[in-house]
């Protein structure tokens, strides 16, 4: 059996089954921090400019619970079809490290806000459902930077620098049951959860800047065995691709270890993107080492049915529902519906254009969003944007045959790059298609008169001569003629005078 890392996943999965649970931390989209009123807009700010006595952990301060943060977790609970607690409580997770100034993190241990949810999503092997064990609230830690003697930021540091701006930012932790079996499922779960967060507005969930942090607990067991193997926690996966690769690597690493007569140790490993491998970070601390106990500074929280109903009523249409609706209501394929729904900007453009223009054919519009729009967004030209009203106008012109498909693409590209309105671009570039039978007839007659040889060819049985004649009409009208109408008009005239 080869053990090249490039073959990760193929060898191990023939003999072992992976058991994977995912923990995701999402920074919630609140204006102020979790337990104090400091501003959460800390990105790019001067270090320690968003701190107060509470989030600095100064003695004598008391936390107060941010209502919005609680509501976002409850909303998430409904969105994953979970049970929202009627009574919830706060606990202290105790550990000593400079990123946590109080010596403990306020979290939820025994009574999380949400329990027993689930999330269903598509994979290459069909739909898959992961059970969500719990979702709870906690506060984020400060940010540590390790410096060496010369002030370089390295892992072997002489001193550590602390920025407490992130301290006290509201975090939601979402923990799955160990239901996941492949790296792809893990990635798809994380992607679907990210989409859900953005759809309901709970979090921007950008992995690159730490608004969403994915950790995986990975173990393997021989196929057919019930008992779990020893699990390893994998961290530092900064993109969805990294999530899939890190887990695939870890499965293969553990299989090789066991095949070689070794044993997997309980540890925390980090994903190193440059080397595409995981490395040992530290032994995993036992849960009871955190000496959890109820937070005496915060009263318990009960959720009234009225409050919960109000939060539930504010939920927008969820991605899974939307995908189904696009198929049944607009006749989109499952694939097209997913492409549209999986990207929030595309969804907004599609919905906005539908709302903007009466009689815009939804399926054609969907093709424009998943085709031209997404191509431009991903391409060199990105940085531009599309206005739903303008896209609706353009798609209507195409549907009415008032502009050719090729010209419409040019118009859209210009609109995307410059923001100019569609009507002005069409006008300025003379793209309005000639669909007037009278005007076309004149052009066709002129071309027939000017090309007797082609006419003779056609009458001699060379049907292909029509293509040449169509081209001549298009040339004469600078591409503005409706090609289908030209074709029909030519054939009619050629048949008549025969």
């Amino acid at each position, binding site marked *: 059996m080869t053990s090249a890392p490039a073959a990760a996943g193929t060898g191990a999965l023939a003999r072992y089954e992976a058991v994977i649970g995912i923990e995701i931390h999402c920074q919630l989209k609140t204006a102020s921090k979790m337990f104090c009123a400091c501003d959460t807009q800390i990105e790019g700010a001067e270090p320690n400019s968003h701190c107060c006595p509470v989030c600095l952990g100064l003695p004598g301060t008391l936390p*107060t619970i941010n209502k919005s943060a609680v509501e976002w977790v409850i909303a998430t609970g409904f969105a994953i079809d979970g049970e929202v607690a009627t009574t919830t409580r706060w606990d202290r997770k105790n550990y000593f490290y400079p990123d946590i100034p109080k010596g403990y993190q306020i979290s939820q241990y025994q009574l999380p806000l949400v329990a027993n949810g689930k999330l269903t999503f598509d994979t290459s092997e069909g739909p898959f459902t992961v059970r969500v064990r719990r979702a709870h609230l906690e506060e984020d830690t400060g940010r540590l930077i390790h410096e060496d003697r010369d002030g370089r930021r390295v892992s072997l540091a002489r001193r550590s620098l602390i920025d407490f701006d992130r301290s006290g930012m509201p975090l939601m932790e979402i923990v799955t049951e160990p239901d996941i079996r492949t790296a792809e499922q893990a990635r798809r779960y994380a992607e679907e959860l990210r989409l859900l967060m953005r759809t309901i507005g709970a979090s921007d969930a950008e992995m690159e800047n730490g608004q969403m942090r994915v950790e995986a607990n990975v173990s393997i067991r021989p196929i057919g065995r019930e008992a779990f193997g020893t699990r390893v926690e994998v961290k530092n996966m900064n993109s969805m691709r990294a999530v899939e690769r890190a887990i695939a690597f870890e499965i293969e690493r553990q299989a090789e270890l066991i095949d070689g007569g070794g044993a997997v140790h309980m540890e925390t490993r980090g994903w190193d993107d440059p080397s595409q491998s995981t490395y040992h970070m530290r032994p995993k601390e036992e849960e009871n080492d955190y000496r959890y106990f109820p937070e005496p500074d915060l009263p318990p929280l009960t959720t009234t049915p009225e409050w919960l109903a109000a939060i539930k009523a504010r939920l927008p249409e969820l991605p899974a529902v939307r995908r189904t609706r696009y198929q049944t209501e607009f006749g989109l394929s499952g694939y097209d519906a997913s492409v549209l729904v999986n990207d929030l900007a595309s969804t907004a453009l599609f919905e906005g254009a539908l709302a903007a223009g009466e009689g815009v054919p939804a399926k054609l519009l969907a093709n424009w969003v998943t085709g031209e729009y997404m191509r431009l967004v991903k391409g060199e030209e990105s940085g531009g944007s599309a206005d739903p009203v303008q896209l609706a106008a353009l798609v209507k012109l195409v549907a009415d045959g008032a502009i050719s498909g090729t010209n419409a693409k040019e118009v859209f590209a210009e609109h995307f790059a410059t923001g100019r309105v569609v009507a002005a671009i069409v006008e300025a570039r003379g793209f309005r298609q000639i669909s007037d039978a009278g005007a076309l007839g004149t052009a066709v007659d002129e071309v027939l008169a000017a090309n007797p040889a082609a006419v003779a060819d056609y009458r001699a049985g060379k049907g292909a001569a029509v293509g040449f004649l169509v081209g001549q009409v298009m040339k004469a009208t600078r591409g503005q003629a409706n090609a289908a109408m030209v074709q029909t008009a030519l054939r009619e005239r050629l048949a008549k005078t025969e």
Partner: protein
Amino acid sequence: MVRSGIIPGMANLTRADVEHVAFLARLGLTEDELARLEGQLNHILDQYAILATLDTEHIPPTAQTIEVANILREDAVRPSLTVDEALSNAPERSESGHFVVPAILGGEGGA
């Protein structure tokens, strides 16, 4: 080692337990201190053991002594401290405006 609990010897925290707790608290203790704390901690646990004999079946677990619930804060921003104020108690500060502490490696990054 002397224990002065009313029911001595009920708790049995070992020396290894004390060392582990000291490690979690990041306390570097001497042999003498470890020995003394082993006695004191067992003594404290003995007191709790006495409390544990009481019948509390009809008393719900209590983490708070004041009867309030559902105290929530509206999500509104108020001004933070200035950077100078925030750093005024720092053991050392860097030019970049960070708190400076001795290098601590490989520990737990909580969240």
